[in-house]
Each structure stands twice: as C-alpha cells, then as structure tokens.
C-alpha cells in the first residue's frame, strides 16, 4: 500500500497509472466481495440456536414409516416421533411406555397390555386399544412390505378388550415378542392420520405420540423434528432436532469440528485421533450389539472339518485388529453375542497362536497348509474399516499356509452373492457384521438354525446341527427367562466349539459430539437419544 502511494506521488508513465487505476477498481471489487461474504456468514451463523440439536447422518431415509423403514439409524429418528408399547433401557430391561403394564398367559400365546390413558397423537386423535390394534395389524398386512415381521413372530391377531386394554394372540409361543414390542417397527401410529393422509404423505411424516413431531423432510437435505408441546410425559429439552444428511464421513467430521453441528454419526476409526485432539469435540464410543465375525462355509471342504475351522480361528489376532485397525473402537468378542444381549454367555476367546494353528491343520491332514485358494467374499464401506480388517485376516491366514483371495463387492452385490443356494454358493469365507435387538433369538436362530440356509436367510455357514436346532427352537418358545438363558448357554457352548462363525470383535458405535452437549443417552443397539439433552453454555 505504501509502496503504491510512493509511486503515485511521482510522475509515472501512462501505462503504469492505468495499472494503478485498475488496482483501485480491484480493491473496491474485493471490498464489496468481502462485505458480501461477511453478510453471508452472518446469515448462515444465525441459525446456530442453542435449543436446536443438529446431527449429521450418512444415510438418507428410505421412508419414515415405522413399519417400512429398514435401517437402524432411520429407526432412531422415527423413535422420537412414534412410540412403542414398551421401552428398552440401555441395560436391555423392559419398562412401560405407551403400555402401563402387561402380562403373559401361562401358555405364552396371549399378551395383554394396559394402554396409557390421556395420551394424544400429534393430530389430537386419542390413543386407545383400537389404535394399538390398528398399528399391529399394519405389520401383518400383506400389502405393506415390512422388513420387521420376524420381530413379532407368529402374530395371529390383536383383540380390543376394552377402550384401554388390548390382547395380542400368537399362533405359537414366541419368547422375544416383548423385545419386538419395544422395537420401532411396532410403534403405535394415529389411525386417523393413516386414513386421512395419502400413503405417499404418511410414509414421510408419520404421526405418533412421541416427544417430537416431524416438521419437514427435504430429500437429500434434512429431516427436522420439532418438540411436541402437548407431550404426555416430561417435555423434551431441545426445541428442535435437525438431522442433516451428509453421506461422506469426512464431511460429517469436519462439520462437528467446525461447530456447524453437535453430533456426527459414525466416525471412522481412522479419524479418532483428530477427534481426540480437539478439545471442543468429544468422542463417544460405546460397544454395540454388532459383532464382526469370520464365517466358514461348512458346505465346502476343507471348511466342513471342525479342526480346520478351529485352526483358522487360532491364526487370527483379533486383539490386534481391534486395537490397531479399529483404533480401540471395538473390543475382542468374549462369546457368540455382544455382552449386552439377553442370552449372552461368556466363553474363552480362541487365542492367537500360529503354531497351534499349524499343528491343528497338520492333524486335520494339511501339514503344508491348504492348497486351494479360499474365496473370501466381503463388502466395503458398510462397517468401519471393513476392507482393512479383511486384508488383515488375509495376511494372518497366509501366515499358516492358507491362501486367501479377497473378493470385494458393494453391499447389494455382496448380499445377492451370499444368498445363493448351497450348490451355487460362491464363497469359502465371508465376513459378516451382524447387529440386532439384544435378544439371542434374532442372532442365533438366523445365523445357525438349519432352516435358515441361503437363499432363505443368513445361515451363511450352511451350519446344520440337530442338537443346536432343538435348543434354538426350544429357546424361541420358552417363556421362563432363566430356562431360556440356559438353553442359549448350551447352544453357545456347542457353537463355540464348532466355530461355524469365528466371532472376532464387538463393534463400537462412535459419535463425535460437541463437548458442551450433556445427557446424551446411547443404546447398545446403535441408537441414541437427545430427548433429555441440552447444550451447556
């Protein structure tokens, strides 16, 4: 600037003075530009209100209708708007929500619920037994494709006993029914809203009784929920929840680091150091119900041999994977299920011991390792670091003489390949991360019952064991929780010894959270609640 002034005071050739004029124009231009920019910043800064909680999520909702949504994260959004009969605490205990009490008939076929009185849906329709029946009927309605019919089991019909008592009748006993009655899919919705709104409208703005109403949903941008001021219980603390749809994990992290948002959902383990280095952001990393395991296809030799499977289980250092690749956002499995499950039974992990592994392989008849290349099918980008973990497994198995070829696919192609019938099944090994509500039935029955072989379901090991089948069937219908727990213990011991599925680690749900956010509740089944949260000033 001073230099320019000096030049100006002297007599300068014409061209230079023209340059100077241009310089002035340029400076004006920049000044206007900066002023405009500042204005924009003020405008954008304005909607940082304290009673609004802003969350960045990577998944765009398919629909927000409780019976039709298909991902746990979307179910999380729906939970704030549509409530279920029962509530499951983070410790997997059932508590009253829209039902004040409930009872099970000795036969295990009839569940009677007393419905909370004086509750109104967001459209002012009163909650009653009729509405409960209406909502349960939607799950078994053949015209509504719901992914969740398995969670209510053999539901036959629902009877209205009186205005506030409802009875659910099953065609055969189904012990995890109450867990289902606490899951999003069985949320009670307003019958008037379903009838009055067009189906296209209802699936994106369902009407329930919850602490938040859906205010708006802009596809690809955000879902906004506003506080229900007429809520039957204690009012929620935030006035507004904004769920921004941000597909890229790096961008979600940047948003929370820059203070644009309060919670970034699913942070990559690779970014954990960046979160920890920033004092204004806190890492919340909690063990979930999701277990990552290596699945052996027992319909293909040599993986039909228990000894081979045990040998390979000893070849993998799952502790190192959890610590170094997952950066601590995972913990070594200590049983078939995550510890938060009903039916979890602790078992000693297969320790990392390559020598023992080689010895077992030799005993099984493979002293020089396995000649045939093992086709290891896996998906990328579905769970944190899945590709890196599979590469580590490949390296560990290589150490004991098992050559592994990784076949990487996106999720859609992956499940299509996995669900091929036995004679066309393309893989020897596959990694599977499996997370369900915390009742052993949902995981063990699906993964190990012999009726669940692909293409029907996800018994991807093609495991068949009459004893395990019997235990899982009995446990599914047993009403006594202690007897049930013991049945799952027996099944776990057999499955642990047989290793059709080598459980490696329990995945953490990792959130990067504004350090001023208080009273965030995190559930092991990959959900969280901000209903009682607030930002400390």
């Amino acid at each position, binding site marked *: 600037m001073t230099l320019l002034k000096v030049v100006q005071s002297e007599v300068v050739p014409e061209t230079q003075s023209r340059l100077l004029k241009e310089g002035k124009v340029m400076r004006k231009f920049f000044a206007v530009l900066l002023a405009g920019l500042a204005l924009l910043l003020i*405008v954008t800064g304005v909607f940082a209100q304290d009673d609004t909680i802003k969350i960045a999520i990577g998944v765009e909702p*398919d629909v927000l209708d409780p019976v039709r949504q298909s991902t746990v994260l979307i179910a999380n959004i729906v939970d704030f708007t549509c409530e279920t009969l029962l509530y499951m605490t983070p410790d997997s205990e059932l508590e009253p929500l829209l039902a004040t009490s409930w009872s099970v008939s000795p036969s295990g076929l009839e569940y009677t619920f007393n419905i909370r009185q004086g509750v109104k849906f967001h459209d002012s329709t009163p909650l009653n037994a009729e509405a409960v029946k209406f909502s349960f009927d939607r799950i078994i309605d053949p015209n509504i494709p719901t992914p969740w*019919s398995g969670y209510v089991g053999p539901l036959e019909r629902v009877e209205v006993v009186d205005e506030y008592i409802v009875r659910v009748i099953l065609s055969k006993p189904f012990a995890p029914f109450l867990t289902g009655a606490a899951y999003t899919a069985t949320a009670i919705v307003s019958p008037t809203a379903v009838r009055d709104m067009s189906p296209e409208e209802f699936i994106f703005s369902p009407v329930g009784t919850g602490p938040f109403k859906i205010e708006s949903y802009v596809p690809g941008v955000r879902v906004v929920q506003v506080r229900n001021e007429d809520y039957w219980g204690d009012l929620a603390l935030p006035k507004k929840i904004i769920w921004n749809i941000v597909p*890229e994990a*790096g961008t979600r992290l940047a948003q929370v680091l820059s203070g644009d948002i309060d919670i970034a959902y699913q942070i990559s383990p690779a970014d954990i150091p960046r979160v920890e280095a920033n004092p204004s952001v806190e890492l919340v990393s909690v063990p979930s119900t999701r277990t990552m395991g290596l699945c052996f296809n027992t319909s293909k030799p040599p993986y039909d041999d228990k000894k081979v499977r045990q040998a390979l289980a000893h070849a993998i250092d799952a502790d190192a994977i959890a610590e170094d690749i997952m950066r601590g956002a995972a913990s070594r499995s200590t049983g078939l299920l995550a510890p938060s499950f009903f039916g979890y039974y602790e078992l000693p992990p297969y320790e990392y011991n390559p020598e023992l592994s080689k010895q077992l392989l030799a005993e099984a008849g493979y002293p020089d390792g396995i000649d045939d290349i093992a086709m290891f099918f896996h998906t990328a980008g579905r769970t944190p670091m899945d590709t890196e973990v599979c590469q580590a497994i490949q390296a560990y198995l290589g150490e004991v003489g098992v050559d592994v070829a990784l076949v990487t696919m*996106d999720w859609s192609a992956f499940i299509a390949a996995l669900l091929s019938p036995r004679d066309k099944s393309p893989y020897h090994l596959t990694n599977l991360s499996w997370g369900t509500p915390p009742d052993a039935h949902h995981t063990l029955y699906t993964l190990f019952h012999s009726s669940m072989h692909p293409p029907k379901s996800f018994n991807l090991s093609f495991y068949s064991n009459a004893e395990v089948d019997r235990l899982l069937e009995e446990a599914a219908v047993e009403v006594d929780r202690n007897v049930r727990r013991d049945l799952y213990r027996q099944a776990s011991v057999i499955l642990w010894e047989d290793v059709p599925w080598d459980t490696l680690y329990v995945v953490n749900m990792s959130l990067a959270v504004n350090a001023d956010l208080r009273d965030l509740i995190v559930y092991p089944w990959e959900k969280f609640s901000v209903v009682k949260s607030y930002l400390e000033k």
Partner: protein
Amino acid sequence: MLGYVIKRIGLSFPLILGVTVITFLLTRVLPGDPARTIAGVNATNEVVEQIRQKFGLNQSLPVQYFVYLKDLFRGNMGVSIRSTKSVMQEIMARFPNSLSLVTLSVACAAVFGIVVGTFSAIHHYSVLDHIATLVSLFGVSIPIFWSGLMLISLFSVTLRWLPAGGFGTPAHFILPVFSLSLYCVANIMRVTRSSVLDVLHRPHVQVAESKGLPQWIVIYKHVVRNALMPILTIIGLQFGSLLGGIVLAETVFAWPGLGSLLMLSVFSRDYPVIQGIVLILAMVVIATNLVTDLAYAVIDPRVVYA
C-alpha cells in the same frame, strides 16, 4: 434456423432411445438385487418376493424394458423402489440444485479461464503464463473428492469462514462451486490460450494495432471474438463432463442434487431412478450441444444454419 433446430431434436430421439437401452442393460448387468437390498437383511423372503412382484422385477428383461419404454412414452418414468415416490418427483426435487451448481461452476470457470487464458496468450512464455499453466494443471489433476475435503478442512474447520457442506444459503455454494470450477478451469484456460495465440498473429490483428486502436479493443473485438469458437466448444463439453463430476462433489459437500441421488440409487440398485437420472442427464447434454452449435451462429455471422 428453426428448421435446423427441429431437425436436430428429431435426430436426438434415436440417441435417447439408445441411452435407455444401454442404461437398462447396464443396471441389470450389475450384480445385486434391488428388492433384497431395499428390504434389508431382516426381511423374510416373502416380503422380498412381494417387492419384486410389485415392481415387476420378476418379469423377463425384454418385458421389463418394453413396460419401461411404454410408460416413458406416456411421460411416466416409473416409481422409485427405495422411496416408492415417482421418479419424476425424486428427480425434480433435486435437478434444479444440480443445474444451478453446474451452471455457476462453469460460468465461474469460463470467466476465469477466458481472462487468464487470454492474458497468458498475450504474455506467452512470461513467468505469469507459466504460473497460470502450472496452477491449471494442478486443478485438473486433483480429484474433486480430495480438493473438496481439503477446502472444507481449510475454510470450514481451520478458518471457520464457510459451512462444511450442506445446502440452503448462498454461502453453501462457495466451496462446491470453487472445487468444481477448479476442476474444469484448466481446459478452458488452455484452449483459450492456444486459440488466442493463434489469432494474435493474424494480419487483421496487426492492422487493428497499426491503426492505433487501444489494446483492449484490439483484444476484445478482434482477437477474443475470433478465438471464441473453440472456447465455446470446450465450455459446452465441460458442462457435460461436470454433470458427471457432480456425483463426487455432491457427495462430499452433502449437496442434494442428482449426483448424490444417483450414488444412492446405484448402491441400493434403484433401477427406475438410475434410468431416470441418466436419461435426464443425457437430454441435458444433448441440449447443451445444440445450444453450443446455435451459439456459433450468434458469435460468428459467417455460420449459417439452414
């Protein structure tokens, strides 16, 4: 002129038909099953089969294609398997967002590219020319997802000047537009430079200079206007290629446009939406080419379409 436009539009029909065949086949060649992907792993086989029937996915491929084509002729692009909304609705909710992003980016890149390219040509082999070439080379070599994340890291996390992705205010435009125009400015700049350089030594420019016209008039009226044809061509092409490039930019910047919808639809194998988006993008590219050709006649009176 009108006759020419009608002829061009008529000629584009077989092209669009070809696009529908190719996208239809490519989506079906992809391994994966939309019904299972959308229903999720918890759904029973009955539910998956139900979805398949509802969307006609269990019919043979030729039948599926002709049903699609028949609907298309009635202006119906089908229904999204994922959201059950009409494809038209899904696309129209986002198309304006992509179009504004791309148009703004191309406009910025064009202004910047032409100005700097012209400057480079006039002062060719100067230090500034070399710097401009280097910077433009840099821009075209950096993948958008990386430049995008770096820009966010600098302007949103470190400086906290701009929002880190998202949509809604003019400020949200700045980073994605910068990142996209960085990507395409190089080509415009290089074509401008060589084209201007070519015109610069023509006799009519020397005449204009020797009759004492101010330099800016010489450059603007006699050089740039004559050099504009190839520049216009490259701008049209950049527009088309950026429509492809938005898939990455929109994902990184959480921009609710066709690119992010396309990504989502490919991952969930939402065939009708994929077909719809590709069709719309193809039509935009065809329209852009037509507009570019017509613009030739506007800037150069010697070009006449009959």
